[in-house]
Structure formats: C-alpha cells, structure tokens
C-alpha cells in the first residue's frame, strides 16, 4: 500500500526563499553599481550557463526525492527502527537520515517520533547527523551542483561513519540505552 504523502509540504514562500531573493537583489545591485553594467551582464550570463549545466542533476534529485518518499514510509520507518538499539539501531538510524528526503520541518518531528517509538539519544543523534551530513537528495541536488565531484565524494566518504560514531558517543556520554520519551517525561527541566 502506498503511504500517504507527508502531511506538511514545504511552503512555496518562506524565510529561506526571501533570504536568497534579498541576497541576489543586493549583490546584483551592488555589482551593477560598483563594477559596471559590463561585469553585471557577464556574471549573469555565466550564471545562466551554470544553471543549464546543473538542471539535469536537479531534475534527477527531485525525482529521487519523490520516489524515496513513496518507497520509505516515514511513520513505518520510525516504528521499525525506534525499538532497535545497539550498533544496529545506530546504523539503521544513520541510514534512514541519509535516505529520507525532506528538510528540517520533516526531519526533527521524525526524530521525536523515533523517541516515542523507543529510541534513545544515541539513535536520535545518529539519525539527525545522518540527515545533516549524508542526506542523499540534498547532496545530489545542491552539493553536486556547486562543488566538483571529487570534493563531494571526499566529504561524503570522510563523513560516512560519523553519524554512527556520534550516536555512539552521545549514548556513552549522555546515558545508556534509555528511551528519549521516558527521559523527557522524567526530566526536571
């Protein structure tokens, strides 16, 4: 059964979009004023070529995000790995973070759902770090568009085991396997 779409699609206009818009307008205006129209138009021309060059990658990344969202139902993933701990739980969490598409508005609620399903601080840390460092759709769409492949592959390779390591460290430092939900209920804060 195909799972229902994530409840909250990304808003079309948000702070992120407004910030890039403001940066583009400001930088473009300054460039025109300080460097002159010739530089302005030549930069704009280069940018258009860059956009054409990365368009196919962006298209593929967007398609992958749609396919992965349908293939990996989020609620099920949370239930499935929430109760697993040990190295297996950390590995699954890091993998889920790397594969599940979506921005912070989808990732952090899922991390909370993991906690509710029995995951500890280690698993939640591995999941968030997996998403932050290794998210496949972000790397494909954004990182590979702007950095060359050697750079991206090296960064990705160096980061590959870090989410598991961070989850393990969090577990060692901040309490043994103990459900996040339990801690939040019991916490005095």
């Amino acid at each position, binding site marked *: 059964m195909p799972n229902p779409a994530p409840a909250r699609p*990304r808003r*079309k206009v948000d702070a*992120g*979009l407004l*910030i*890039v818009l403001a*940066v*583009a307008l400001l*930088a*473009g205006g300054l*460039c025109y004023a*300080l*460097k002159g129209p010739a*530089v302005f138009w030549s*930069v*704009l021309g280069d*940018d258009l070529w860059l956009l054409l*060059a*990365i368009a*196919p*990658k*962006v298209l*593929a*990344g*967007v*398609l992958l*995000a*749609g*396919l992965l*969202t*349908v*293939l990996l139902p989020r609620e099920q993933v949370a239930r499935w790995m929430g109760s697993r701990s040990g190295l297996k739980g950390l590995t699954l969490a890091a993998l889920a973070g790397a594969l599940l598409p979506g921005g*912070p508005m989808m990732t*952090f609620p899922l*991390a909370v759902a993991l906690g509710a399903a029995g995951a500890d*601080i280690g698993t*939640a*840390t591995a999941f*968030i770090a997996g998403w*932050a*460092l290794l998210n496949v759709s*972000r790397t494909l769409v*954004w990182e*590979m*568009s*702007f*950095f060359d*492949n*050697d*750079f991206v592959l*090296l960064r990705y390779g*160096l*980061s590959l085991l*870090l989410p598991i390591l*961070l989850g393990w460290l*969090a577990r060692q*430092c901040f309490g043994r396997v103990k459900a996040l939900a339990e*801690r*939040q209920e019991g*916490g005095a804060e």
Partner: protein
Amino acid sequence: MSIVIASVLLYGAVLVLGGLVLRRGGDAVPEALRISWDQALSVTPRIILAVIGAGFIAALVPPEWVAAFVGRDTGFAGLLLASLIGALTPGGPMLAFAVGGAAMEVGAGAPQMMAFVSAWSLFNFNRMLVWEFPIMGHRSTLQRFAIALPLPVLIGLAVGQLGLL
C-alpha cells in the same frame, strides 16, 4: 567526463527506484510524481536565485580576501573561521552550497570549504533556533551540539594534513 558518470549514476538510481515504485502500482506512481512536482516548484526559484546571488557575490568579493581568510594556507584559524561562517550562513542549502562553491573558485581552500559545508550541515544556527530547539527540546539539542562540535575542524584538518584534495 565525471559529470557524465554522475548523471548516469543519478538516472540509474531514478530508473531502479522508479521500477520499484512502478511495481507497487496503484497510487504509488502519481503520488511520487506529485511529490517530485511539489519539490520542483519549491527548488526551482531557489536554485535560480542562489546561483545568481552567489555569482554576484563572487564578482564583488576581492579574491585576495577569500584567499587571506579561508585560503588553503590559513591553516587552523582558517578552518575555525570557515566553520563559524558555515554555522552562521542562513537561507538553506541553496545559499550555503552556492556561496561555498563560488568561494572555492576564487581561492578558498578545499579543507576550509570542507569545514564550512560540514559546519553548515551540523550546526546551522538558523535551523537549530527555528526547528531543533522547539521540536527536540534544549537538552537533546545541546547534547547533540556538544558531541558534534569538533567535527568540522577535524574533517578540514584530515583533508589538509593528509593532502587528500
């Protein structure tokens, strides 16, 4: 050449996953396409503005500044500075990656940009404030922050010291 390989891998993955979704039948295919379309609507204006904005920034900032602050020879201080800038860069992946890529073209060092990208990924300040603190609670957020804090500089050091790139 490597762009071709990357594209082949990408579209290979699209084909394989697309085949899996196709085999599910039912609503799966239109559902995947709808999600992709929504994503495309959201990504397209952002990527256009980010590329244009980063292009103008690169034209405005004197390359010798970039080299002086986050160039390959700036060492540990450059790694720290790049990490700090990464953590403070707002505006989502479009701006962060566009700015980092443009900086590399005008003299930023690969280790420094590795630290920049890692710090942006792990500790984006704006994202932590808006999403992580309210949703995860301050205890979990601070614990994760503390555990991951040295990573961006360590990754940059690994790249620089081992001469990996």
